[in-house]
């Protein structure tokens, strides 16, 4: 594990913490996109370029666009409601950094056995071969899930239009 990995992983944790702690939903979505972008870099470093490209285009791009468009369709809160909710939020969310620090200390001092048996190093195979030859049912599942999603969205928006 290199210093660059540690810096990237720390940035990922800080971005996820900011995503959860920030008050604005829009900032939260930007934090999520930032977390996703850091994960993309980590995936590239771990010899997984195809998964990284999917993560960057779909998770960082598409999901952020879906979230931002959903947030833009929702009416913002009034100043009075914001003040009331801010006090409530601080009460509920200040525990998170404390829990993370405690969990981090516990994990650091927890004695993980380093001699765990790993499976034998597999022969490197192309991801396209694995996806099309070994995991054909996964592709079928993906098609079914995508179709279900499309029909779901069509039905939901049809219902909204009717009202």
């Amino acid at each position, binding site marked *: 594990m290199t210093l660059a990995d540690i810096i990237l992983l720390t940035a990922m944790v800080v971005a996820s913490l900011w995503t959860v702690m920030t008050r604005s939903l829009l900032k939260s979505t930007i934090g999520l996109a930032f977390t996703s972008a850091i994960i993309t870099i980590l995936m590239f470093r771990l010899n997984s370029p195809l998964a990284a490209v*999917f993560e960057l285009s779909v998770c960082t791009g598409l*999901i952020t666009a879906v979230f931002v468009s959903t947030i833009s369709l929702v009416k913002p809160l009034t100043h009075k409601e914001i003040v009331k909710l801010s006090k409530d939020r601080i009460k509920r969310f200040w525990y998170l950094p404390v*829990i993370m620090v405690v969990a981090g200390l516990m994990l650091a001092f927890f004695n993980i056995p380093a001699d765990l048996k*790993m499976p034998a190093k597999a022969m490197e195979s192309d991801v396209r071969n694995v996806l099309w030859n070994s995991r054909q049912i*996964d592709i079928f599942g993906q098609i079914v899930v995508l179709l279900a999603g499309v029909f*779901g969205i069509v039905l939901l928006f049809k219902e909204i239009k009717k009202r």
Partner: protein
Amino acid sequence: MMGANWHLFTGFAFFIIMVLIAGLYCILVTRNLMRVLIGLELLTKAVTLLIIVAGYVTGYVALAQSLVITLIIIEVVVMAVTAGIILSIYRHNASLAAANLRSLKG
């Protein structure tokens, strides 16, 4: 070699568990439906990275990538449909608070 790989895995797992805690806490504590979705997304991202690290450590990089691609496809469909449902709930109740969902049948 295996020892070095195991150290790499534990090092990554340490930070991934932190992200999992953040996502889980977000889902448990928040009352806003959009934030629940954001927490779920954080959990999925942590799992995605964990699969990639496991693939790298064990040498099954191609298999891990194919699993992650499937995971991302399912994730994006779940997020899009859930965002539509949340929007529908907002138009029905004029609120995103989970506590206000009392008009459900059953």
